[in-house]
């Protein structure tokens, strides 16, 4: 691999990272009503906020609109719904948070899959290394002689 190829690959990686990171950053700093309503759950009817007309869902929508108008970030708005001043709890989150105790919800399945993969790998390795291939059976002399005769016919 030439230096040019390596440089090209690195540039592609940087561009890909920017393509993913820029919209995420924009969404964090300037969240939209629709985006937040899709991310949050109505705590009394347990459906996404944008599908609920329950009184608490309407209150949450109103709160979100007000906070967006005040220029708050996505994290700030979510934190204010989950914690003080509203204290609605983590039940309003569509997905678990990636910090604190909620991080376990992400780590445990990944850990479980990794452990399972290691267990399967270890089992497969043990199974394959413990199995001896049978030694090739020796040809009996009569068969050996006949094979030689047959092959001799093709020698021309």
């Amino acid at each position, binding site marked *: 691999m030439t230096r040019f190829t390596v440089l090209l690959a690195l540039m592609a990686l940087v561009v890909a990272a920017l393509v993913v990171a820029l919209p995420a950053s924009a969404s964090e700093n300037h969240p939209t009503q629709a985006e937040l309503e899709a991310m949050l759950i109505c*705590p*009394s009817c347990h459906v996404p906020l944008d599908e609920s007309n329950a*009184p*608490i869902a309407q*209150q*949450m929508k*109103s*709160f979100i609109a007000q906070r967006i108008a005040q220029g708050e970030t996505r994290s700030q708005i979510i934190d204010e*719904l989950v914690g*003080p*001043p*509203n*204290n*609605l*709890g983590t*039940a309003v989150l569509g997905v678990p948070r990636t910090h604190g105790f909620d991080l376990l919800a992400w780590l445990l399945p990944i850990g479980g899959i990794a*452990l399972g993969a*290691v*267990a399967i790998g*270890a089992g497969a390795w*043990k199974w394959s290394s413990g199995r001896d291939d049978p030694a090739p059976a020796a040809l009996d002399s009569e068969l050996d002689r006949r094979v030689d005769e047959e092959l001799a016919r093709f020698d021309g």
Partner: protein
Amino acid sequence: MRALRLTAAVAVLALLGLLVWDVAHSSGGKVARDVDKGQIVKAPTFNLPLVDGNSKLSLASLRGKVVVLNFWASDCVPCKQEQGELNRLAAKYSPQGVVFLGIDEIEVRSFAQHYLKHYKVPYQSVADGDGAIAGKYGVTGTPETFFIDRSGRAVPPHIVAQAQPSDVEAGIERALKA
């Protein structure tokens, strides 16, 4: 392989521990059920933020007083209908050391604050944002009213739906005598 088995065993034990802890800490809303059967039971304690303040209020801090615990929400029509009578009764029984305490269930705080102001509620309310305390009391909707005696025990009756003044007064008298 032995390490793997050990890890799996520890994981299973940890999950079982979590399950036992959860069951042990869940009252399963027995209070309403038991009080409805005429029993006197220990009222679940709580320490919740005040709706119109930054501090918290604990039920334990009201020990020695009779507490009328009213679960409400700002969008609940019967809550609005009973509010005037609750305000009146709170003023009437205050000299006897009876404390009315509202528990606002699962609401955005500003809506609850608006309700308190609009209905001129003269007593304090705390915010049960995630409904955990309502769950411990076995509350299934709003409004619901419980009566807690001076020892922190819930005494019958337990009023479901809009409270009639005579029922509230009967509950207070029962709690005062308990």
